[in-house]
């Protein structure tokens, strides 16, 4: 079910609070804000920034958390997802963090959110004008796997020298017969900067092209911020004879029967039984509330309060 926006019950902005609004100090926020504006001015370019220690380890979304902290205000409605799901540990923790330190209403409803922080997915529901999507990025440099030296990748971006990336895709085709790699598929922003879309499945890449929302990317450990403004061309790299294509499934979602969403495969037992369900939990719940039912709707696994079938 889509929960309505909820106001946190803890009055985190009371006089007794011993930290600044939205956790970061004002000067850090200004530094991040300047980086965001430059990132929007040079779409796809990775702006270095002074990443701070956050109350979670690197790899748990420190880049995204710092971006959110720099932009969030009490009027925002905040949604946080991890692998598409609102109810996973990391998403719940980060959502609770901002409800506490920034006095914001939180929601699971994609349409009601003004800021959506995400690890590894873009929601199925199309993003809208006025929304800001914040991505947590482990490795901002799309070329890092091909060239370990930062000095070299900087130069490659400076001169738009992306031949190595195309060679890598070509080697994929010669080895596997297709462009392999399902997530973090490289994109070209406004036909200039090569960008890693963060490890979202390539299924989500087309959603970024001419998207009405602002897309912000933050890598805390690697200390980089980059952005895609609304209505910006985002092209997934491909070849004329090997065009870009996204994942597809023979099954529909086992719970909501969606045929157009990104599906996770869930192994059910050791008898080779499995199910495919929407990775976007809000999308799936919304559809089920509308009466859509997949082949396993009503299955015990669909109910959290019951033990899985043996």
């Amino acid at each position, binding site marked *: 079910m889509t929960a309505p926006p909820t106001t946190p019950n803890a009055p985190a902005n009371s006089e007794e609070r011993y930290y*600044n*609004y*939205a956790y970061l100090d*004002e*000067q850090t*926020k*200004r*530094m991040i*804000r*300047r*980086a*965001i*504006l*430059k*990132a*929007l*001015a*040079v*779409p796809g*370019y990775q*702006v*270095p920034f002074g990443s701070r220690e956050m109350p979670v380890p690197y790899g748990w979304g420190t880049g995204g958390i710092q971006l959110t902290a*720099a*932009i*969030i*205000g*009490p009027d925002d409605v905040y949604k946080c997802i991890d692998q598409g799901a609102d109810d996973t540990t990391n998403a719940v923790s980060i959502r609770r963090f901002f409800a506490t330190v920034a006095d914001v209403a939180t929601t699971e409803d994609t349409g009601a959110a003004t800021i959506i922080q995400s690890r590894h997915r873009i929601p199925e529901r199309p993003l809208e004008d006025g929304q800001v999507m914040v991505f947590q990025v482990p490795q901002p440099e799309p070329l890092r796997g091909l060239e370990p030296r930062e000095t070299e990748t*900087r*130069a490659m*971006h*400076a*001169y738009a020298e992306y031949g190595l990336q195309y060679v890598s895709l070509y080697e994929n085709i010669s080895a596997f017969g297709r462009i392999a790699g399902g997530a973090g598929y490289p994109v070209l922003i*406004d036909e*200039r900067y090569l960008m890693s879309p963060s490890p979202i499945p390539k299924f989500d890449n087309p959603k970024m092209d*001419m998207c*009405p929302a*602002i897309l912000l990317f933050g890598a805390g450990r690697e200390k980089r911020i980059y*952005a*895609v*403004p*609304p*209505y*910006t*061309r985002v092209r997934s790299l491909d070849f004329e004879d090997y065009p870009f294509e996204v994942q597809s499934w023979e099954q529909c979602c086992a719970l909501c029967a969606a045929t157009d969403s990104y599906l996770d495969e869930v192994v059910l037992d050791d008898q080779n039984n499995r199910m495919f369900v929407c990775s976007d939990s809000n999308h799936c719940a919304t559809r089920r509330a509308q009466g859509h039912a997949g082949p396993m709707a009503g299955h015990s696994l669909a109910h959290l309060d019951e033990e899985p079938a043996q």
Partner: protein
Amino acid sequence: MATQTALDLSQLLPGFADPTRESQAAFRAIMNATARPGLVADLAAAPTPPAGLNRAAGAAALTLVDQDTPLWLDPGLHGSAAETWLRFHCSCPLVTAQVDANFAIIDAGSDMPALAEFNQGDARYPDQAATLIIMLPALAGGPTLELRGPGIADVTRIAPQGLSPGFWAERAELVAHFQYGIDLKLCAGDQLVSIPRTTRIITTGA
């Protein structure tokens, strides 16, 4: 150029009443405007700065400028209450060489400095380029500009007043060398329009 006179606090106008909340609100408006070139950001909640600055430019400075960002100030404002106000509230170093500045506050009514003299960024670090906060009499009523590029679905139009006839040609020459280029914040009254270097402009009309 820094004046060495003691600061007279009784003459100093206030900055944001609630710096945390107000700078956040101002930043979101500026961020939305930067993401959507041509969109007019409303900074109506901004405090009134001293004469020489308009409210949008003052709010942009309070939101973005601090001790890490050298500021180039229009020579017409040197020694003014506006300079004192910026020094006090932003704690920013004031620089005389245009190339040293991260931010510049320019009154379009005075002599426009040569845009090429500002930092255009480095090939590897284009984010180092300067941001120019340009104060205008109004964001409407001037020659019509057609804007295209990232952040604009198709085309959008603005008509800022008070820029010299050659200004957009001078800017076009600089941003033609993308990723180099300067980013503009046009400010009039309590309104702000952002023109990043990616925006392609066609000047039409009078």
